[in-house]
């Protein structure tokens, strides 16, 4: 079953490569006016501004453009997110891979089998307040990455906040150690889910990591197509990955 899964992912990657080679534009032939970045520079979600922008030959006011036109890159209220996960999503996949490689490196250097002890009992105040603060911190991290397409934030900060909650658990309880099997399997499945979203986009829209879901109303929770789903996978992946790094820092080898 595992081999079948690996073959499926590899076949998808090869398919993606062939599609990419087929659609590439020869040098000097690209239509500069139709670039996605030009659309982004003309974007304004407030729609109060009277500035016009040009679509083809006719001029369109902003209000009609943002709420009326269903562009693939117009769905999310947070412009940064719509660049990072829509327009530049392949680069984000690279960032996630870099983080994965560095987490593997930390595991190779620092990993062990036994929980390292601090040698003194943890602070009573810290231990009691961790019980109150921990669910709030985890909830805040989840809020940050679920609302990544609406407010500043996203998958990476949300995952880091969740890892900070795990660090608080480690500091306040000497017996606690993270279940590495759950953490590693969550990390791996979420990382491959991102690639699978990309491949579904390739099958549905003809481009890797294409935004294949409807955009909805700008500013509502279920909007921006695939962006919230991708940010949830990124948030869970980064959270479990950095929690694993925190756990490996607190481990030591036998002897």
């Amino acid at each position, binding site marked *: 079953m595992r081999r079948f899964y690996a073959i499926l992912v590899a076949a998808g990657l090869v398919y993606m490569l062939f599609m990419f080679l087929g659609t590439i534009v020869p040098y000097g032939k690209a239509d500069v006016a139709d670039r996605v970045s030009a659309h982004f520079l003309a974007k304004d979600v407030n729609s109060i501004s009277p500035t016009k922008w040009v679509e083809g030959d006719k001029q369109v006011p902003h209000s009609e453009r943002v709420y009326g036109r269903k562009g693939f890159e117009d769905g999310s209220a947070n412009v940064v997110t719509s660049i990072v996960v829509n327009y530049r999503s392949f680069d984000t996949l690279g960032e996630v891979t870099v983080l994965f490689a560095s987490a593997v490196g930390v595991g190779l250097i620092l990993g062990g089998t036994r929980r390292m002890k601090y040698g*003194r*009992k943890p*602070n*009573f105040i*810290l231990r009691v*307040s961790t019980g*109150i*603060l921990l669910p*709030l911190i985890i909830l805040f991290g989840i809020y940050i990455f679920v609302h990544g397409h609406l407010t500043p934030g996203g998958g990476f900060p949300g995952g880091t906040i969740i890892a900070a909650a795990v660090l608080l658990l480690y500091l306040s309880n000497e017996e606690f150690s993270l279940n590495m099997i759950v953490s590693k399997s969550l990390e791996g499945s979420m990382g491959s889910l991102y690639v699978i979203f990309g491949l579904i986009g390739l099958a549905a829209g003809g481009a890797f990591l294409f935004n294949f879901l409807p955009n909805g109303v700008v500013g509502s929770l279920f909007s921006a197509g695939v962006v919230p789903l991708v940010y949830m996978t990124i948030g869970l992946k980064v959270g479990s990955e950095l929690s694993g790094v925190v756990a490996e820092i607190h481990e030591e080898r036998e002897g």
Partner: protein
Amino acid sequence: MSVNVIIGDILIAVGAFFYFLGGLGILRMPDVYNRLQAGTKATTLGTFSTVIGVGVSKPEFLIKALIIVAFVAMTNPVGSSVLARASYLSGVKPCDCTKVDEYKGGGEE
């Protein structure tokens, strides 16, 4: 200018004054523990006053401001207590003017 805006501005001014006192205390106090106490008091009271001032002058932010105040009230004392305990256990001496050291020989609750 309406009344709640004036009240909010006064609260923000009080918060800025507490921040100033905190900075002065960090500059003037003799050792780590006194500086920590000055800094924590100032940030707690200053943040409370400033954030509630923003909430009063703009009523649509009032609930958010109260939530921020609740979180600061939960985290700030814990953080400063942990910092003070860590610096005591790692051997930072209180200054010579300290009269009572109730934590001496302790470290266990």
